[in-house]
């Protein structure tokens, strides 16, 4: 079973393969930078930046069908919004990060040719 599901993206694309590929290329190329931002915000305990970055990224996870990760991202955003719950972020983020790296690796394996 794949770690991503392109059903939603294909529905939006409406048969336009160039559009679908443009979205996948963007996601593959830009997700590492999002991870870097999240890592840095976590290390700096900068919860405002962390919340903003995860808030912006979550819809992209759903667009490429990484829905379980989108659920974790929503949870991380809630935790980052609550000052008394930020202590839970590192462990939740660790699972989110590992899952995202694996899913991105799989997506890159299947569509990485778009970035060349």
């Amino acid at each position, binding site marked *: 079973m794949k770690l991503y599901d392109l059903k*939603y993206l294909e*529905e*939006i*694309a*409406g048969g*336009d393969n160039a*559009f679908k590929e*443009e*979205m996948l290329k*963007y*996601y593959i190329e*830009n997700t590492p930078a999002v991870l870097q931002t999240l890592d840095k915000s976590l290390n700096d305990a900068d919860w405002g930046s962390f919340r*903003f970055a995860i*808030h*912006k990224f*979550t*819809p*992209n996870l*759903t*667009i490429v069908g990484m829905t379980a990760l989108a659920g974790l991202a*929503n949870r991380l*955003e*809630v935790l980052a919004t609550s000052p008394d719950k930020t202590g839970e972020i590192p462990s939740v983020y660790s699972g989110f990060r590992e899952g995202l790296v694996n899913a991105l690796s799989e997506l890159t394996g299947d569509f990485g040719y778009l970035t060349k």
Partner: protein
Amino acid sequence: MPKILVCEDDFMVLKTVEHRLKLDGYAVIAVSDGSKARDVLKDPAAEVRLIITDLLMPYVSGLELINTVRNEIKLEIPIIVLSKLGNEDTVLEAFNLGADDYLTKPFSPNELSVRVKKLLMRR
């Protein structure tokens, strides 16, 4: 062909909204921040018939944009707000400022089509 202004700073969300609206036959002006949207709306030649805007954006937020549209430029064109689930307070504020409808991100393509069509018919 009605012209729709879409304002969203996330590239993938912006492109998906734009793509769906184009498939539905609308002309789309897609911008990535509120200040660019404001510039478009201040140009009467743009003839925008509907606005779809994100709320949380750098420079000029969606709320500031709605306020500008309703109270500064004084346009009555419909506004749909794009928001993630869990942002109810901000969505309510958007309605208080003059937004007409909202969609959660990521949106349902069919829901977007129906809501846009309905608002364009209403005005």
